[in-house]
């Protein structure tokens, strides 16, 4: 267990935080809430650093385990804490034309609307894959679904999602 303390937690934070944050963005479709849940995840994780055993897996997988519990707690908890879709944030210092930024905003909203229609389990797997950028193997370990099944599920979900995206984009 002593090896646990040789982890460069500082570096781990900067490497993993954006991925955890994006996982929550994909799960809840809301920046403010994603920030809150990310904060809860890291505070919980840092409080339990000693529980991290590097021999059992990568730190990202460990953090994702905590993040998924935080997400589960959130969805079980009082609903009003789920804020409204707050639209896309225009990055400070974004020098692109406003039209482009607004198009991105509309695209993001459209995307999140499609995500919201997915069943919870499929949304979770998409969030793990494209939000947290986990491998199919890591997703399989986290979710208990077999690796090949993760690939199959993703294939189907994404095909459906993109088809809907194409249809809506041409409407």
């Amino acid at each position, binding site marked *: *267990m002593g090896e646990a*303390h040789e982890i460069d*937690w*500082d570096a781990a*934070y*900067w490497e993993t*935080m*954006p991925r955890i944050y994006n996982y929550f*963005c*994909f799960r809840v479709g809301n*920046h*403010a809430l*994603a*920030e809150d849940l*990310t*904060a809860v995840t*890291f*505070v919980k994780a*840092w*409080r339990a*650093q*000693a529980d991290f055993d590097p*021999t059992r897996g990568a730190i990202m997988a460990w953090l994702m385990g905590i993040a998924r519990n935080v997400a589960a*707690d959130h969805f*079980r*908890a*009082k*609903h*009003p*804490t*789920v*804020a*409204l*879709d*707050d*639209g896309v*944030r225009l*990055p*400070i210092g974004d020098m692109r034309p406003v039209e482009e930024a607004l198009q*991105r905003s509309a695209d*993001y*909203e459209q*995307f*999140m609307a499609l995500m*919201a229609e997915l*069943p919870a*389990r499929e949304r979770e797997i*998409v969030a793990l*894959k*494209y939000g947290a950028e986990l491998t199919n193997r890591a997703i399989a370990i986290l979710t*208990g*679904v*077999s690796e090949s*099944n993760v*690939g*199959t*599920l993703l294939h189907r979900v*994404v095909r459906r999602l*993109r088809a809907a*995206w194409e249809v809506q984009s041409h409407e």
Partner: protein
Amino acid sequence: MNDQRDINETNDLDTAFFAQFQQTPRSEFAQSLHETIKQEAKQVEQILNAEKTEDATGFNGIKSGLNPNHRPREMRLTLAAAILALIALLVLLLLTPRNNSTIVAPETTAEPQPHPTHDGTTLNYNRRIEIEAGKGPVTQVYWSPDGQTLALAGEFGIALYAADDLMTPLAELPIPIRVIQPLKHLPLQFSPDGSLLAIYDPAQGLFLWDVRRNVRSYTLTFEVKRDSVTITNASVAYDFSPDGRFIAFERSDLFSSTPYIDFVDLQTGHSVGTFTPPPYSWIGGMKFSPDSQQLAVLNGNRSVMMLKSTDGLWTDSQAVRVISLEAVIDWEQRSDFVTGLAFTPAGDRLALWFGRNIAFFDLDNGSEVLRIAAIDNPISIPRDRFPTEMIFSADGKRLTTLSDRVREWDTQTGERLREFTELSMGRYGAVLVLQLAVAFNPDFSQIAYITPEHVVQIRDPQTGEILAQQDAYTLGEIHDLQFSPDGSRLLSVDTGGVHIWKSRDGGQFEQHLSSDLSNVMRPLIPPGTFYWENPFNAAFSPDSTAVTVANERGQMQRISLTDQTSEPLLDLALPDPDAVSLIAWKPENSLALVRTEKPNAFVLQLHHVETGEVLTLREMGAVHGETRVRTPEIFSPDGRLVAVAFKRSEPIDELVWGIHVWDTATGELITTLPGTQDNIREMAFTPDNQTIITTNFYGTTRFHNLKTGLIDLTIPYANMTQGMGLRMSGDGRVLALQIAEYPQPVGSPTGGRGVYGFDLYDTRSGAKLGRFVPSDGVDPFSPFALNHDGSMLAFLNQSRQLELWSVQ
């Protein structure tokens, strides 16, 4: 192969598609969070240093110092127990010939620890009542074959009950149970005589629980050591032989391509045989034949290997027949995994459930002789998650299948005989079945199942009559607690419904000293009789005679506590439950505050319940700034004001954030209290309607003066406190703040442990009355409540028990 290639290529393309929707966290947020956890890390370092100084032996509570839940003494006990277990293990290994798996001798359970008493700081607390509640929803039901024991399981763990007494559990095991693949990773299974319960715990492996003695029996786990890394087998299929002599279980070395199947004699605990399947086999499940002489082993989706015992032993087992499934499984339907495997009672046929179908095979020649289309639900869901259970009648002529429906079939013709319509899985059909479970008792005279309301019921399957109902575990995740104004009742709102608790004889709580809920309180509104899908708000009437409940569809009901009748107050008839994000009401239920969501906008409205009049308080487009309405929303005690906390909005619409206060009569905005830019977590009006008290995400509490718009008092956070919860006694005199302080260095007053509990303040003077730290701990987000005069505190502890304390 083409399909596989297509999957990979599509995923590569999709990565680019999804990348455009990935977000960069705000730099302020990233920095702020980084600072927060850096400070925590600094404290952790101090603790580590202090721990090293304190304990020169090298072993001590390094973990315990970091984690407030770990206690050094317990760690030492754990180590001692581990050493003893190791010695026992070595002795067993020496004594057990040809024992390929590790079998740990029966262990005894630790005696339950008495609750330590708390000496308090300034205040004197006496624990009065402890209520078993809020364990979380039951998702699995298992009935022992002897009909004596019922096992209820879920994320909370396992609770064993005598089938004729659903009030008091025989044993509780805190092992989270979830179904991964029902056939392979069977979470629980009773032995044929009901005396043993096999429990598959992904963290610990497979072990057997002695139901009669309430102790852990054999542990059927083995470990593989490779390159100094020890791996516990994480994947096992298993089955008891019907004669109760053996258990067969899979032993797979994660590093090799070959799993093994071990047979263990349950009387001696010795291994009595091993079967080595062909290389690259994947054991999908296994089942003994009714005469215990054969074992059917599912090898992936490819085949079923039939093993036969020799003179009742399994030494050097060989597959005597292999039934190929190549022609049965439709490989185009890749999700058609085999999810059920059963012998007919005569043992002459084998039934396999895959996808939507059940196929029967003749065991003499291995050919398919019958196929039943068991599932016809068109909803596409992952079929490997179906609890596809097959139960044959004693004569083998009828088959009952449990999936999205409970149905009975003729096993000769494949004709559907009947469907248990009274066990309808609700309007969500197959989706809900993922959360449900059904079990029959041995003679089919009773069926136990979980309703969509998370109530465990036992019914007569013929008449539908409810024979018993279990409510001790029906409370889901509790997210709100409130005392009635007169202090006689307690209300809990959870994912399963709203429950009102009252003392059994109508007296006050503190008159009862028992620790047994059933002696002290009973649910006034029995679970199941009043159910709201995801109720998220409830409140007592000022006179404590009624409760108003709201759900996310914009429906409000008033429930009379005297005759338990209910009347609708408001029905916005919103088809989308997400459309209403908050709802609150004046104490006398004449006004409801509703936030509805529209595309790119939200609307905040006051609904006059009696007149039907609607006042729009705020309508905002999401494009113009980030709306981020935050809860809570509150009415003033006199009902004349309503306040909503908005989260900071940046950078466009800076006017939005803060606490907005409206006049409920006119809908006019009275004032906006800037207060804080932080996320407000909770707020409360003082009884004089003059002050709003808020707590924010970082643990700061502020008293906002409505007249001056200034902050009269700030209770800052200290030592990384994350006090997020805020409750005020009904008389407004006592304020309870939920606190969570991170671990302190050893030698500090807290002895290296974190502090989780409540601070109590006098609201008039702002003076701190005292700090209450429950000995069993309390989660910083747990619901809690103060009664009217601040003399009773109720909260959910870390073990998800509801605790009531008197404050003197």
